[in-house]
């Protein structure tokens, strides 16, 4: 495997953005599930 600070930064930023966005989707899904449960109760 190759090592270069710029290369590492680019790959890290890419995955930080993707994982950050995915975590937003997951947290919204969890909030909606809670809301649905409250509506049913």
């Amino acid at each position, binding site marked *: *495997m*190759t*090592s*270069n600070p*710029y*290369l590492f*930064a*680019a*790959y890290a*930023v*890419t995955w930080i*953005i*993707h994982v950050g*966005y*995915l975590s937003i*989707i997951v947290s*919204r*899904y969890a909030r*909606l599930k809670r*809301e*649905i449960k409250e*509506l049913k109760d």
Partner: protein
Amino acid sequence: MKKAFPILALLTLILLGYAGYMALSPNGAPTEQTMGNVQRIFYYHVPSAWCAFLLFFINFGASIYYLIKRSQAADIVALVSAEVGVVFCTIVLITGPIWARPVWGIWWTWDMRLTSTLLLWLIYVSYLFLRRFSSSGQTAALAAALAVFGALCVPFVYFSIWFFRTQHPQPVLGGGGSIDPRMLHVLLLNWLAFSCFGFLVCWARYRVEKLQRDVDEAHAMRSLMDLRNPRQQRSA
């Protein structure tokens, strides 16, 4: 459908891992002679740009369909594709300067390719802001009209290198530039991996948006019921 998602997610994860290994390892893509290893940013930068363009075109198609048929599903597809497209476009705008700094000696230059990509990103960010903060009943139609204009910028961004003198390299496909076949193979592999990943993210986001609208509708129905039966509400 619910069972297919985790299976596809696992396959995509494996594909992303393999594509990432091929991009980073000299056993996969050869090291570029002039730029060295920093050129490997190319395998994330270019597929992210292609995914963003593809998603903006899906947004365009869904927006046109919504304007004609007023389909709720098309409206959700338009919103989701724009949102995930902005995520990919953000990656392009960040990885580009990280690549430019060691190669050109500068983080940013106001040449046509870079500036038009930034403008495209701003158009779709404003599209998302419009959808998020406008409370008008015509928001979806207004956003669809904005999306049509936004999509017209995509070919301009891609072919801006042809029309203007720019510091950015020629397009890999259809631009007259040449590329080592092994590099092209790894590039296409990464594009496939990111496209599958983008599709899955869109799928998950679509389900969340659909659920959000169902919950909003349920809240509205409950408010109506409470208004119609205030006695029951009081006794409850």
